[in-house]
């Protein structure tokens, strides 16, 4: 009986230990949010939440702390990265899971994993040295190469490994019966991929994209190096609306990183407020994924 009660005791202890480890991450998220919020409160109180969110000028010297330009910067660069990165990543995933023979998979997959291991500052360097000069070649007045386009391309490559490998796994996990069933009805490989496999793998692909979005929104140093960092509301620089991507911009993350070392008082608090906005944006992205998943499950 003693051994029995000892085992029950261990069982209870283990339960508690596991519960505590699960709660730890929740607690940490909560603490970070509270801490950031606390830092941001003076700015919110003094300048007004809405005024900060909708303000387009950020001039700490003048006491102006509008962060709309940075929200637009982060939003646009992430949108651009998704536009470039998702098709590329999905293509890679389909190629690796459905088309490539084993020996090619053995070469390509590790190189994609290697891509994930490159430090972001190195991506930034690559962007500055290779991409920016290339983008500068696009003839448009005021195009310096530094801007949303260069940043979007860098970011697309950075999120590619995440999205590609999770999507590949999702497509591989689709039961073989769907594949056979579709082919047996006279579908070609491509029809099978586009009409059965990708829809069936949708939940996994959505998770992959959301993880990529989260990473894109949070990326800092590589963005600082290629996006130009001017606090301006991005706008088309020629008659072509697409030229908005040639505009310089600043991301929310970059705003904090560039200025926090010398900021004091309201300025410092406004940077914390930038952090809160970033936090909320990422939460919005994650919950919209939950919504999409639920709709897909129907």
């Amino acid at each position: 009986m003693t051994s029995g009660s000892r085992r029950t005791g261990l069982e209870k202890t283990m339960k508690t230990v596991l519960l505590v480890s699960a709660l730890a991450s929740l607690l940490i998220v909560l603490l970070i949010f509270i801490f950031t919020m606390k830092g941001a409160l003076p700015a919110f109180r003094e300048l007004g939440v809405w005024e900060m969110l909708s303000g387009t000028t950020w001039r700490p010297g003048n006491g102006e702390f509008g962060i709309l330009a940075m929200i637009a910067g982060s939003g646009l660069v992430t949108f651009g990265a998704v536009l470039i990165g998702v098709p590329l990543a999905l293509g890679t995933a389909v190629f690796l899971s459905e088309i490539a023979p084993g020996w090619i998979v053995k070469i390509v997959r590790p190189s994609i994993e290697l891509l994930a291991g490159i430090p972001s500052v190195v991506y930034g360097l690559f962007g500055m040295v290779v991409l920016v000069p290339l983008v500068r070649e696009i003839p448009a007045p005021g195009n310096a190469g530094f801007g949303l386009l260069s940043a979007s391309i860098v970011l697309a490559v950075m999120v590619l490994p995440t999205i590609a490998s999770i999507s590949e796994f999702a497509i591989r996990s689709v039961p073989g019966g769907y594949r056979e069933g579709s082919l047996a009805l006279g579908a070609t490989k491509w029809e099978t991929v586009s009409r059965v496999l990708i829809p069936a793998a949708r939940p996994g692909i959505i998770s992959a994209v959301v993880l990529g979005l989260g990473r894109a929104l949070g990326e800092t140093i590589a963005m600082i190096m290629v996006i130009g960092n001017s606090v301006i509301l991005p706008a088309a620089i020629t008659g072509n609306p697409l030229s908005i991507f040639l505009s310089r911009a600043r991301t929310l993350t970059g705003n904090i990183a560039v200025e926090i070392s010398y900021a004091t008082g309201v300025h410092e608090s406004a940077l914390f407020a930038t952090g809160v906005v970033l936090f909320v944006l990422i939460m919005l992205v994650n919950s919209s994924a939950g919504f999409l998943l639920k709709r897909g499950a129907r």
Partner: protein
Amino acid sequence: MENETTRMSTEDYSLYYGKFKALNSINIEIPSNRITAFIGPSGCGKSTFLRSFNRMNDLIPGVTTTGTVNLDGRDVAREDVVKLRKKVGMVFQRPNPFPKSIFDNVAYGPRLHGLKNRSELAVLVEKSLRQAAIWEEVKDDLQKSGMSLSGGQQQRLCIARAIAVEPEVILMDEPASALDPVATLKIEELMNELKKNYTIAIVTHNMQQAGRVSDYTAFMLTDQNRAGNLIEFGATKQIFTTPVNSRTEDYISGRFG
């Protein structure tokens, strides 16, 4: 075999997985609008053989073949595989409806082959579901997911899906082995209906099932090199009562396998 038209046939058909010979020089004529059952112990190659008729073995790397498989007298290897599979449908061992609505499952094939008109599709979907004897059970909600049906219903949905592309031949690879006895009976009744319009070839583990549903039975067995051979082929009644080959008799009477 007299008075029957041949729908599919093979001539000296052998199949290799790499160097391993899995099917050894098989000759058979599958009659039109009849049910032909393939029986034999596990590993005798009957599923592999069935999958030769719609070239599903093409998907397996390293498979090579010699001899021919013919549909209406034409070598299927020379046919466009998409067109071939439209003419030769298949129902699998495990029901495999797509994670789509019942309607979209049945409309999948016709849409692939170019039917876009909404009302024509609706007519075809209803006709196919009726032929597969599942219309009455699902007609109230065709938008429901095909995955939400019971196993037996899913299998009939898969049969409807195969019928919807208007094939000539339906291959069934142990279509009832994952189903309960009631659902199995329904599938068997359905097969009897279907043979009016289609040629059916079925692989089954269940000898009683072969005896109940089929008109012709093919008995397969591996030889000393583990290659599948066709041992005997004939009218089901003859195979089950007066088999010519002693190994067929041993298998039928349950002495092995």
